[in-house]
């Protein structure tokens, strides 16, 4: 995705059209800045980022369980 495309989509997320799905998602509490960041990546990079986040969450959960014991 080009920088211009990214800027256009960022502006759209900042000021979504009324009654749009983007506006609805923001109202729902979805952080679309994370989604926008992903759109700048390739599908392969996206799933690898997700795997990294999952690894982090599972490490954190393991650490929390150890602390409780």
């Amino acid at each position, binding site marked *: 995705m080009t920088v211009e495309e990214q800027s256009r989509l960022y502006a*759209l997320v900042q000021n979504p059209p009324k009654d749009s799905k*983007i506006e609805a998602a923001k109202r729902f509490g979805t952080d*679309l800045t994370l989604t926008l960041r*992903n759109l700048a990546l390739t*599908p392969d990079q996206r*799933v690898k980022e997700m795997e990294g986040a*999952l690894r982090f969450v599972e490490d954190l959960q393991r650490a929390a369980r150890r602390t409780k014991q």
Partner: protein
Amino acid sequence: MIDFEAALKALADAGVNFIIVGGYAAAAHGSAQITKDLDICYERSTENQTRLAASLIALHARLRDVPEGLPFVLDRQAIAQGMNFTLTTDVGDIDVFGELPGVGQFADLARDAVAMELYGSTFRVASLGALIQSKRAVGRPKDLNALSELEALQELDTHRKSNKKS
């Protein structure tokens, strides 16, 4: 933690005809949600059921969330008699769907599935539209959460494409 790459490659190496669905497919499209399992929709032909059974047996797949010791053999016949299975394997949890709620079977998904390059191989991934339909049909609270992001993603995608055209 699930090894997505190993799971996908095991299915592909066995020649299973499948389409990636669920949270992993959403992540490949750009969703920021995290998923802990791999969901696939498999084609229901006898040959493909045989290939799917072989690959799942090689991964020591067993039914998830059932009492330990429940007699169950995951072979082609079991796949033919069943439809959707939630499994635990040596590489992590894999859910295999013969039919996806709100969307249909493999052929319905294949119509607008997207080819994506993942881990150096090409895999078929369900379209955003199909993922949205499926989330709407299931309608659990966690699906509704994912749904709002997927619908926004689809809208962003439409804007992106229309800007490219103009």
